[in-house]
């Protein structure tokens, strides 16, 4: 029997609407990727600049489908004991201590050493069983009974060895634990990997994934996103602020403002009860959009020009 959320991913349009209901405005390729990921049982590798909503996509998918979101943040030095499973050493120790007395009672009746050993073999893998297994994110995602959304965040930050270790999980939705055997997912989780392109990922990993590149959105999409995320903002202002950010991106900047910065800025403008964008106000709040001193310096002298370009119908901006 397939879980309820399988019935939700019936078409690309349904996926699009579903994500929107969870507060995520998706472009066509994004919705397509989620739809395909489910039907082809493949993970999605999401790449793109910071702040375009890579992680957000996983959250929205989880909340729409009603699945638990299991998130694993990657970093240098991440290994399988932190990603997959760990034995509960403390518990194992404690149990051996507690069982010590019982052990005497159990083995006491045996006549010789050999017999006692044989008897012990009967209990063989007591301490390396499921009871003492501490599941880490990857294993948790596989064992989640109704499926899950597994987000492997910033996989480019992990080592190459870890990438290789992920391959089995990503292609077959199973992992091998030497002491127990192979754990296979009953319901394959939806897997999303994100990468900021710090290093090139291996071909083997890329081959197993659908590759989704989320770029900076165009004005229409961005306006829809702002409308969704900052509902209080008035429509005229929204259109102008989006147009301004789009203009700002045309400058030669070290770090271009992405969607998350636009959202923050819209929130700031909302808090300040702004009705009209003018150069002074933009200058004061520019540090919300631009995160480098050099970028701010580059943008400041051209603010008036950018503002005018952002609303060709309006009168020139007063200085």
């Amino acid at each position, binding site marked *: 029997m397939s879980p309820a959320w399988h019935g939700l991913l019936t078409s*690309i349009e349904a996926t699009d609407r579903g994500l929107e209901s969870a507060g995520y405005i998706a472009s*066509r*390729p994004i919705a*397509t*990727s989620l*739809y*395909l990921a489910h*039907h*082809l049982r*493949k993970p*999605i*590798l999401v*790449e793109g600049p910071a702040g375009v909503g890579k992680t957000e996509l996983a959250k929205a998918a989880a909340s729409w489908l009603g699945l638990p979101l299991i998130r694993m943040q990657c970093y240098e030095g991440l290994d399988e004991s932190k990603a997959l499973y760990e034995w509960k050493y403390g518990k194992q120790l404690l149990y051996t201590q507690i069982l010590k007395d019982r052990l005497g009672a159990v083995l006491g009746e045996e006549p010789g050493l050999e017999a006692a050993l044989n008897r012990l073999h009967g209990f063989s893998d007591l301490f390396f069983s499921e009871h003492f297994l501490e599941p880490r994110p990857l294993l948790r995602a596989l064992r989640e009974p109704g499926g899950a959304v597994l987000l492997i965040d910033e996989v480019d930050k992990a080592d*190459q060895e870890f990438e290789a270790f992920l391959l089995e999980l990503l292609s077959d939705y199973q992992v091998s634990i030497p002491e127990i055997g192979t754990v296979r997912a009953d319901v394959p989780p939806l897997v999303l990997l994100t990468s900021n392109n710090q290093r*090139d990922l291996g*071909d083997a990993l*890329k*081959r197993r994934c*659908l*590759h*989704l*590149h989320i770029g900076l959105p165009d004005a229409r999409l961005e306006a829809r996103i702002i409308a969704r995320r900052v509902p209080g903002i008035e429509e005229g202002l929204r259109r102008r602020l989006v147009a301004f950010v789009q203009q700002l991106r045309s400058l030669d900047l070290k770090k271009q403002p992405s969607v998350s910065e636009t959202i923050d800025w819209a929130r700031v403008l909302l808090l300040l009860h702004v009705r009209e964008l003018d150069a002074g106000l933009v200058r004061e709040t520019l540090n919300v959009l631009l995160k480098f001193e050099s970028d701010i310096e580059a943008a400041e002298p051209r603010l008036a020009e950018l503002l005018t370009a952002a609303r060709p119908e309006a009168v020139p901006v007063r200085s």
Partner: protein
Amino acid sequence: MTGPLLDFFRAARSAGLRLSPAESIDAVQAAEVIGFADREALRDALGLVLAKTVEEKQVFATCFDLFFAAPAPPAPPPDEAPAAGEGESPLGRMILSGDAAGLAAAAAAAAAEADVTSIAIFTQVNLFTRRILERMGLAALDREIAAAPPVTAQRLREGREGLRETVRDEVQRNLALYAEGRNEEFRRRTLARTRLAAIDRRDHERMRQLVRAMARRLASLYGRKRRRDRRGVLDVRRTLRRNMAWDGVPFLPVWKQEVIARPKLILLCDVSGSVAAMAQFLLLFAYSLREALAGLRAFAFTGTMVEVSDLLEDLPIERAIPAVLDRAGFGSSNYGAALADFEAGFMGLLDHQTTVIILGDGRGNRTDPRSDILARMAERAKQIVWLNPETRTLWGTGDSDMPRYAPHCRIAAHCSTLDGLERIISGLLRDGA
């Protein structure tokens, strides 16, 4: 159903996408899930499966559009006047009745028969156009035109011209789809083997891509920290440490390893006219490879030695190379003076981890070669590698001082092509230089 997809994979491969069979299978499955009806959705879906970087996405989009571009509709019949004849040949009938779909189908069938996808260069366009038209029955149409009354003949002639245009466009499209990649591939292979000094200026951009790709490959191979086991040599200290739990009884022996360090490179490039072309590719190579190196300094000289590391780090390579040439000047080379400059200013850079790569033909225009300085450098540095674009037989002829320099170098090699450069640098990286 999968026929057009298979053709598309071929086109995509020739456009430079690397598609594995596994990805092709995924693409077929994706297409089955999505269906062929919605072209936008199909394009998104195939893009997700087949293109794995941003650049590949662009290549993919172009290729997809080109491949699935609907062939231009054949010219409509010029007027609604009743057909001036029934037409005898199949082509004539279709032209006279304005059967555009029939013509297109016939053209496609003839194109497949003529194996148009095997087209390799643009000079074949006419050949293939002619072949396809012949297969469609051009000869019969020509005969019909000759025999027909003037009005009909005129319409048939117009129809024939329209048809020729259509077929020609179709062949052009196939050329763009299938031939470009093959030609590009061929050109790259040839370039890697061409003498660097002889490479044409218009190929420089392509060369830069090639150099970067090679360097990237080496960097990802050797960028990580690596160890090499020295088999059979016991590491006593670590063995004791490892076996402390057993009171030092060595249950688990530990063997010695050596860490292969990332090399520190110092490049000395002769940028006088004879070697300049080669120097720019060496500099580019080294700077694309920086991940795999622990340190990199670059110097250029003709008569005096000047450091150019800052230029190469700050400027994009297209501007950096001219700037380097500008700074080091176009003089005639004087190896002795340049080496003396290096000794005076930068000898402190050399230590037992440093590899010095000198690029030059060793022709000092009969000035004092000062090979004694090179000897002192060789003592301080880990090794000196001399790359000479001239073949070995020319060393020592005329004003060449190579025989005097060569004894101080661990490697003195002839190297004039990109392939050769890659071989030598990759060897250095493998052994930790």
